[in-house]
């Protein structure tokens, strides 16, 4: 039986015999975001996993700080920080198997790094050397995606293709609260549900799309409520609770892997820093709002849980911090080196074979460079 036939032969019937296609009740999210830390559920958590999450959160925070610092030194063109959102970034990366795929948005360099992408390569786009700085196949991380929500149908297509080939691969795609307003979000979720594609959609609801708050973005009870309109389950989770995010995503990944179809997960979190270093968030929000969220910091929440339960000691904290410092030092050192770029790369990969026209243009540029011309914007 083929994937397409699995869906069964729906035939419309007149209203007396009409049946809903799916029972909506189990698709609806809970009324409040799911939490583990600080609740009884924490007792059942795996200490080893929590420690791994913790170490990565600390590393991620340091990574964010270092990348932001590098923008000030002119070493990165721009940096959209995920400070405060590390729980989502880290859990999304750790929840996947090696054969799975991650589809990050432009803000999710950290998730790529946690998945194994070299941090310098993850930051290449934002440094300005090249667009995608890493080989997407090396760690199965799709290119960081700037046009919002456009990566979501890619994730669906890839997951569908894997399923057609008989591979039990899952794709996890990350999108922002703002991105859910785009048509591509809608089309991707619909295709995924119709095809029962093994995809997990993670919405990082960080409260803002640049300056636009969620209230101007949607009137929905929650973004997770959108799921029912596609016939997939919607889950709402505290996005600053790394244990909860990991658990909810793990459930969704498991469900997808065994042919259960896609899930929409909304993680409620907060963008603690400005949109990017180029943004001025004083224009649209009060410090007090940011401060309220600092009290709900993902690292602090997890550290408290771990230390209170005796699952993490001073040495563990120190080790995590040292590891984070090592990452930062390496990043600093390597990004402070000037990059070597070959302008001929402009033409190298437009097509498998350069067209005659591109060959001409390449020759033109080569001649210019040989004549010592330096180009515009000197």
């Amino acid at each position, binding site marked *: 039986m*083929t*994937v*397409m*036939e699995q869906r069964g032969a729906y035939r419309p019937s007149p209203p007396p015999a009409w049946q809903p296609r799916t029972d909506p009740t189990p698709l609806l999210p809970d009324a409040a975001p799911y939490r583990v830390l600080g609740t009884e559920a924490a007792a059942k958590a795996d200490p080893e996993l929590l420690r791994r999450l913790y170490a990565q959160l600390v590393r991620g925070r340091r990574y964010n700080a270092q990348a932001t610092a590098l923008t000030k030194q002119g070493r990165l063109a721009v940096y959209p920080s995920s400070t405060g959102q590390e729980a989502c970034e880290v859990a999304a990366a750790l929840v996947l198997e090696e054969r799975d795929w991650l589809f990050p948005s432009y803000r999710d360099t950290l998730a790529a790094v946690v998945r194994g992408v070299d941090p310098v390569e993850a930051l290449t786009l934002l440094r300005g050397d*090249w*667009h*995608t700085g890493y*080989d*997407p*196949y090396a760690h199965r991380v*799709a*290119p960081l995606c700037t*046009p919002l929500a*456009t990566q*979501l*149908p*890619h*994730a*669906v*297509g*890839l*997951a*569908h*293709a*894997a399923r*057609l*080939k008989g591979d039990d691969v899952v*794709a996890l795609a990350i999108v922002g609260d703002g991105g859910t307003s785009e*048509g*591509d979000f*809608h*089309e*991707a979720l*619909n*295709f995924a549900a*119709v095809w029962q594609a093994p995809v997990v959609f993670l919405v990082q609801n960080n409260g803002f799309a640049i300056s636009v708050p969620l209230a101007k973005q949607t009137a929905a009870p929650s973004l997770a409520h959108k799921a029912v309109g596609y016939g997939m389950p919607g889950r709402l989770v505290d996005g600053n609770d790394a244990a909860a995010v990991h658990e909810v995503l793990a459930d969704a990944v498991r469900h997808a892997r065994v042919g259960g179809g896609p899930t929409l997960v909304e993680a409620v979190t907060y963008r603690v820093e400005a949109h990017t270093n180029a943004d001025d968030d004083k224009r649209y929000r009060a410090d007090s709002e940011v401060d309220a969220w600092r009290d709900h910091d993902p690292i602090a929440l997890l550290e408290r849980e771990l230390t209170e339960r005796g699952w993490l000691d001073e040495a563990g904290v120190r080790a995590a911090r040292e590891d984070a410092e090592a990452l930062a030092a390496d990043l600093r050192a390597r990004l402070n080196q000037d990059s070597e770029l070959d302008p001929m*790369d402009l033409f*190298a*990969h*437009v*097509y*498998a074979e350069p*067209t*005659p*026209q591109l060959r001409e243009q390449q020759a033109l540029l080569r001649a210019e460079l040989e004549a010592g011309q330096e180009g515009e914007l000197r």
Partner: protein
Amino acid sequence: MTTVAVKPATMAQALTRALRDAMAADPAVHVMGEDVGTLGGVFRVTDGLAREFGEDRCTDTPLAEAGILGTAVGMAMYGLRPVVEMQFDAFAYPSFEQLVSHVARMRNRTRGKMPLPITIRVPYGGGIGGVEHHSDSSEAYYMATPGLHVVTPSTVADAYGLLRAAIASDDPVVFLEPKRLYWSKDAWNPDDPQTVEPIGRAVVRRSGRSATLITYGPSVPVCLEAAEAARAEGWDLEVVDLRSLVPFDDETVCASVRRTGRAVVVHESGGFGGPGGEIAARVTERCFHHLEAPVLRVAGFDTPYPPPMLERHHLPGVDRILDAVARLQWEAES
């Protein structure tokens, strides 16, 4: 090389055959789009494919063109070779962002690591009495987007050969199918289909000495007709069928224009900002000292595509082409 012409086939049949042969030859080839499965497409180009290869290989998608192209991108990332059908020219527009921002750039942005071998079939152009939004010539948009190949057949044999080449290409190809040639017939043996026609080569469809008509797709038969009619005026016109707008075959086109010294570019697409500007400009850049007259253009008007009852006034016809040929400053010769 012998071509056995057993019976005439239509361009639509040749396209179907190309899809079928490509699917049979390579299990990575997947056809997808609106109504392409059970129905076989509104132009029946995918007829029988779902039956023969199953719905997983020839899939009726939900009605969302960005979703179709966007999921095709993901499928191509995983090693498939999707062949996407857009139902009509104007209904490809919702997928424009996916096309421009991803399909055309993925190879370049990943430094060659992630090529996207996607074929996007777009029935295009007018002349079939289609109502609003069913007769656009959208090739200018695709030509202006680096990273795409843009190909369009004008004969039954080319329909087969070029579509096979498009599907075999490791790059994205926008494959423009002239709607009003779907039912054009040609002596072509479907059981001995012509070999793959490489993308990027124009062909001289008719040799002549007086002037060159540079054209493609639906306007090729019109130009051939015009060339026949021109004999009455004593003009011996050469007709070049571009077949591929990207890459552009400067060699063949310029060789012809250098020979004839005069050229008219003919297409249905609107003139202003249309393909003809590029073609005329590049021919002039390369052949300036061979030109007896400026390269002229005969194109659709710079208006939205008109309703069926008026489309004959919009489409470049024989008379309008001959009028342009007449304006090629023949007096300069004498």
